[in-house]
């Protein structure tokens, strides 16, 4: 995966480049809005990571310029402004995801990977399959090894989101944002309990566990046999 990091804090940018390299991605960096815009227009990137406050050209302006030139590369906005209205403004300008500073690298990585995969995403598929687990998005039916699994509406959406991102790490905040549409941090980790409920419905009694906890990052649904 090729990434472009537009961030004026050199230390932070260096750290990100190094961290992405360690997990096998290629990352370029730009120190200001102008340079970032040029690189984004010229290069072929899978995801752009854009800081909101940049010298020369503001982050949102960079995104606006890209979108007006029909460059549809997914953009993740990084910002110290993390309130709901800042987020809404960022997403309205054409950003695809928004992450407030300070953040955990695992969170950023999970979101960037989710964005990159979204292009060739399974969004159009009617039936998601992971191992012998099947989810039909139209009939809202879920089955494991041919046996029907009864899910509450929210559990269905949770599983649907996990399965759309099968093989990828999905963080708790991603789930909270995409499944519950909440952008705040519930003090107790309510998501974990929802996950364990879901797990007891789809994994209980099966030798092969599909819903995995990724320590320090989040959750992932994947066919362990592969």
């Amino acid at each position, binding site marked *: 995966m090729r990434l472009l990091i537009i961030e004026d804090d050199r230390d932070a940018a260096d750290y990100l480049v190094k961290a992405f390299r360690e997990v096998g991605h290629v990352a370029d960096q730009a120190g200001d809005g102008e340079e970032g815009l040029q690189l984004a227009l010229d290069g072929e990137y899978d995801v752009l990571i854009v800081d909101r406050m940049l010298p020369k050209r503001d982050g949102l302006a960079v995104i606006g310029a890209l979108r007006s030139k029909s460059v549809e590369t997914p953009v993740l906005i990084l910002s110290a402004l993390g*309130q*709901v*209205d800042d987020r809404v403004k960022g997403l309205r300008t054409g950003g695809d995801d928004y992450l407030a500073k300070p953040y955990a690298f695992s969170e950023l990585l999970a979101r960037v990977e989710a964005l990159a995969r979204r292009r060739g995403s399974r969004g159009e598929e009617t039936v998601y399959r992971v191992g012998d687990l099947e989810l039909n998005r139209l009939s809202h039916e879920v089955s494991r090894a041919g046996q029907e699994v009864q899910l509450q509406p929210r559990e269905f959406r949770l599983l649907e989101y996990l399965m759309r991102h099968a093989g990828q790490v999905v963080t708790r905040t991603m789930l909270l944002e995409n499944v519950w549409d*909440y*952008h*705040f941090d519930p*003090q*107790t980790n309510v998501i974990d*309990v*929802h996950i364990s409920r879901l797990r007891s419905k789809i994994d209980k009694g099966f030798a092969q566990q599909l819903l995995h906890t990724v320590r320090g990052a989040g959750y992932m649904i994947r066919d362990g046999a592969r």
Partner: protein
Amino acid sequence: MTALGKLLRTTAFKLTLVYLAIFVLFAASLLGYFALNTRRLIDEQITSTVDGEINGLSEQYEQGGIRRLVIVVDLRSRRPGSSLYLVTTPTGEGLAGNVGSLEPGVLDHPGWLETNYRRLESPEGSDHHALVRVVQLPGGFHLLVGRDLEERERLFGIIAHAGQWSLALVIVLGLAGGFFVSRRVLKRIDAMTDTAQTIMRGDLAGRLPVAGTGDELDRLADHLNAMLERIEALMRGLKEVSDNIAHDLKTPLTRLRNRCEQTLRHPAGDAAYRDALESTIAESDDLIRTFDALLMIARAESGQARDNMIEFDAAEIARDVGELYEPLADEKGIALKVETNGAAPVRGNRELVSQALANLVDNAIKYARPDGTVNGTPTEVLIKAGDEGERITLSVADRGPGIPDADRGRVVERFVRLEQSRSEPGSGLGLSLASAVARLHGGELKLEDNHPGLRSIIALPRAGPAGTG
């Protein structure tokens, strides 16, 4: 500006002048109307009496000739009063009557006219004014009957006099009143200005004087005082925040730093380093969370989050939050129930209200005694969206230890955690945020006794017209 200049410029004084002008105009036209009508009335009276007398005297003349007329006129002229009589020969020589001299030519013009004359008994006296009618009798004699107008003029004199005096009195009293009122108003405004200046110098405890009369200045002062109260509260809040940041953020930072230092001082291998780093990250995550919560509260309190206000259904929020927390409650052996009763429309920031309610539910689950019963009631947490007409309430009731009466006001403050809850995880900001969110929406957070347990209520103004329920 001189004191007098200031006084003359006051609104009260300017108003006084306007009212005074209007009043004077009104009084003058009233008096004028009165005088005009009186004059007409008097004139009508005079003409009808004079006409009557002339008719009578003409009859006397017809029956008894000039001799009889002279006798009658002579008789009538002797009576005291304001009646005037004169009978003359065709050449103008006086035969009888009480008129001494007339303006020349009066007798040649029969009909009505106003003229000056002198009385017979005081030929040297001054001219008098009279309304007279002259007729020419058959035979060429002239008969003049009239009324002295002195009475009418005296009446007008009195009216004019009264008019002048009352006008003078009105103007003097009006101006004095204006001065008095203006000075009173000015004094109160000056007092307000003085207080405002002390407040601006930094003493926020000052309040505007309220006279207690309930007038518009009092209302203004009341409102300004309420505003000052709010400003003072905000300033106090700001100071508290900085104090709290100093304490509650510096304490964990110090802990963090100490742990790093200690790890460095006693090198104990990779595993120990790893442990130290992991706990450092965990601790800094907590710090970030606290910081976010503080920022959010500050934002809600300063009213910045007023953008993005939309109309939404509080009942739906109750259901959503209930659904989010139900598995957690279930895991702790607590029955979490949601009770809604129709739509509960509220206008506001949906996300913030959700978070506020989530905080209350989180608290309720945290402090509810798990499993079993309390005083015979099963442990449960009840989320309820209520419609009280004017207000929409979102309440969370638990069967936990509750909050003693004395502490209820205090727990809403930032970072306040009661002794018995120190061991529970949490920042102590949950209730502060809920309270700030409620206030942002023009509502309030109420904490009540649930016998046993705590009932926390977010009361918000209802959006749109009040429903029937």
